[in-house]
């Protein structure tokens, strides 16, 4: 123990005593091994792990459908399916990926696992509600998937009316499923907000919270404020589909543009539900692997809240070509660009953190690099599509598809994988093979670029989205995109293999990164009530690394 490491002062760190106690205290993983002890658990860590299992399953389903789409688009004409099947496949891909994977991925898995640990709490504020939100999510997923298997739907994940009110495919169960999943999202968000307000350990003030917590807090605010509106909308469309309310049907005096307003009032902020937690993960990763306190902590924290706030006033940029007034379009364009300002604040601060840091180029850091590229590239194309005149040309082309895949999928997947690799030792107390980690990271980043950069080009050339046939001249780029997608899939397979291997045969570790994040102040994997012995105290900020060189010298000690 060196004097410079004040956060690890004796008595302050149960994790310190942890080494002596190793093996004597059961971790949350071994505390009860029956199926029932998992299914009925109220432990936020077990709930997080169960979310992880389900979310990975849905990611696999969505990914398989993504590959089917890419194979279909390999040739200009019909390739492996007919037009109706294609419509169902891309709808299924969208619904599964958005509602079942992207939105809950980081908050429900890593948020659940880490939020109480990062706040020095024994659990979230409402543990039983937390378990309920898992089952509500699964119930919603069940509804949605049941509808998809029994006929499927061909509306696209946006369920645009009046088509969704008329189509004979099974829209109602899927809409209702999405409504139920929304409930789960609200419950998780509420739980996190209350936990952050009431459960912070003594010493953790608002500005000593880890940046991941700030990001989760901002995300939860969006979840709580936006989800009810789409909940109502989904109910109305379900009713319209079943009872012909006519609410959004022009033939009955309804207004489909009203649908779009209500839909994007949720679904645009939902983009930030996906990407804000990703920003939080990256703030943790960049600080740990640069061995530096995060540059501009307050600016990063405030910009999360800023994105959450401005994100509510940007929905109209989805409706530039819907017939809204030019003035509205201009205002929504400018408000959308404001999000870019807040994101840029974060990007500059991350780069400032890396600058002159003692960078350890580990797997999570590799994902950070990919993330930085996707965020900046995706964000800049976001500014481009927020420009009304440009969007009129690009609207509903593959350019927009590539843009949102870059910023939403690219950034979120990078963060999800970074989080998975960074906190894998925390969750399971095991370490994976770093070499394979870097190989697969390289494959995935390359594969992702190879998949979506051609889509920017093909979209700019005028290929519309959601069509299953296209003119001959688009083929080269589509083939490139499909090739990229296979590379991407290959990368994921490697990850699945070495992480599964690590889970069983991995080397036992406690804090392989020598991270000073609050969550590492306890054992890995943590015991059931998170801490053994006295409550940890928190004399330093969460991203406190004294001096890059010194910190590297003392690492074996912590």
């Amino acid at each position, binding site marked *: 123990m060196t004097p410079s490491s004040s956060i690890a002062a004796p008595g302050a760190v149960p994790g310190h005593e942890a080494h002596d106690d190793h093996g004597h205290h059961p971790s949350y993983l071994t505390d009860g091994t029956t199926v029932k002890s998992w299914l009925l658990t*109220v432990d936020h860590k077990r709930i997080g792990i169960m979310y992880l299992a389900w979310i990975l399953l849905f990611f696999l389903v969505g990914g398989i459908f993504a590959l089917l789409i890419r194979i279909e688009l390999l040739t200009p004409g019909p390739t492996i399916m007919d037009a109706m099947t294609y419509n169902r496949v891309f709808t299924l891909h969208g619904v599964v990926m958005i509602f079942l994977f992207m939105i809950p991925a980081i908050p429900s898995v890593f948020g659940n696992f880490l939020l*109480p640990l990062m706040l020095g*709490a*024994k*659990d*979230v*504020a*409402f*543990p*039983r*509600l937390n378990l309920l939100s898992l089952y509500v999510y699964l119930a919603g997923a069940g509804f949605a998937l049941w509808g998809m298997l029994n006929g499927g739907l061909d509306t696209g994940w946006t369920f645009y009316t009046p088509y969704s009110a008329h189509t004979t495919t099974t829209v109602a169960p899927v809409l209702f499923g999405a409504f139920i999943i929304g409930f789960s999202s*609200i419950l998780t968000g*509420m*739980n996190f*907000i*209350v*936990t952050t*307000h*009431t*459960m912070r350990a003594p010493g953790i003030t608002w500005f000593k919270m880890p940046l991941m917590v700030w990001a989760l807090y901002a995300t939860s605010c969006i979840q*709580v*404020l936006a*989800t*009810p*509106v789409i*909940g*109502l*909308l989904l*109910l*109305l469309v379900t*009713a*319209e589909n079943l*009872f*012909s*309310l*006519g*609410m959004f*049907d022009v033939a*009955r*005096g*309804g*207004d489909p543009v*009203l649908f779009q*307003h*209500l839909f994007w009032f949720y679904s645009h902020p939902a983009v930030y539900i996906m990407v804000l937690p990703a920003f939080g993960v990256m703030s943790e990763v960049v600080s740990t692997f640069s061995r530096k306190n995060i540059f501009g902590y307050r600016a990063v924290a405030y910009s999360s809240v800023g994105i959450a706030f401005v994100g509510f006033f940007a929905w109209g940029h989805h409706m530039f070509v819907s017939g809204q007034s030019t003035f509205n379009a201009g205002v929504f364009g400018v408000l959308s660009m404001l999000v870019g300002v807040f994101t840029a604040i974060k990007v500059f601060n991350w780069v400032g953190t890396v600058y002159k840091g003692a960078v350890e180029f580990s797997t999570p850091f590799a994902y950070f690099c990919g993330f930085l590229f996707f965020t900046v590239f995706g964000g800049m194309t976001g500014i481009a599509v927020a420009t009304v005149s440009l969007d009129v040309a690009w609207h509903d082309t593959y350019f927009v598809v590539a843009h949102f895949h870059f910023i939403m999928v690219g950034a979120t997947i990078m963060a999800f994988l970074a989080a998975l690799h960074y906190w894998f030792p925390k969750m399971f107390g095991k370490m994976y093979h770093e070499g394979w980690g870097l190989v697969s990271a390289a494959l995935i980043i390359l594969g992702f670029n190879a998949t979506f950069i051609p889509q920017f080009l093909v979209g700019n050339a005028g290929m519309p989205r959601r069509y299953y046939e296209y003119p001959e001249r688009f083929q080269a780029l589509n083939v490139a995109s499909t090739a990229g997608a296979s590379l991407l899939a290959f990368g994921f397979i490697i990850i699945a293999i070495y992480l599964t291997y690590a889970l069983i045969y991995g080397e036992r570790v406690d804090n392989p990164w020598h991270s000073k994040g609050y969550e590492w102040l306890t054992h890995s994997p943590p015991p059931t*009530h998170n801490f053994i012995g006295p409550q940890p105290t928190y004399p330093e900020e969460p991203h406190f690394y004294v001096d890059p060189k010194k910190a590297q010298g003392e690492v074996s000690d912590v």
Partner: protein
Amino acid sequence: MSSAHVTPGSVPGPKLAAHFASLEVQKHAARLGMWLFLATEILLFAGLFACYAAYRFLFPEAWAASSRSLDLTMGTINTVVLITSSFTAAMAVHYAKEGKNKMVGHMNVLTLLMAVGFLVIKFFEYKHKFHIGTLPGRYYFYEGIQLPGAPMYFSVYFASTALHALHVVIGMTVLAFATVRAYRVGDFSANNYTQVELGSMYWHLVDLVWIFLFPMLYLV
């Protein structure tokens, strides 16, 4: 997860869950959670209010005519019933704080009776509409108002009142739980009344939403 278990006959007292630092914090968390939940409920109805505003703007005449076709007397009675039930719900909290468990139960029963009354009146209003044909969308067959947009008014009317009625039923379930606990276990006291308070908060929300719906649908 509650750690302590209060058995009937033991000293009434609050239960501190294992993961909270103190009772104060636990109560604060419960109340904050409820307020957040109520905020989401308001936003749920806000979407309907937005629909109402948009279509009222598109079909001002049909809106005015359809609004006049509603039974104002029944609506007014229902409003009075619901406001009164909010009072009894508040009284239940008052008695819970004083530890008068029997009165808590009585007040909740009164609230529940009024809730049933509200639903019965609503049922007759609906029945009348089904009879004369002021129904949403495609099912509209009322001869009295032939303006475009009138079916839309009843789409909004049925969507909002049905969603509200669903909330009445949920509120009744919540209150019923507190009632049973007040009569059976009787452990509400000055420092253990959160359940009654939260149930009553939910009931006030149900009432509040109606106070918006009533002028919106019946009066304006």
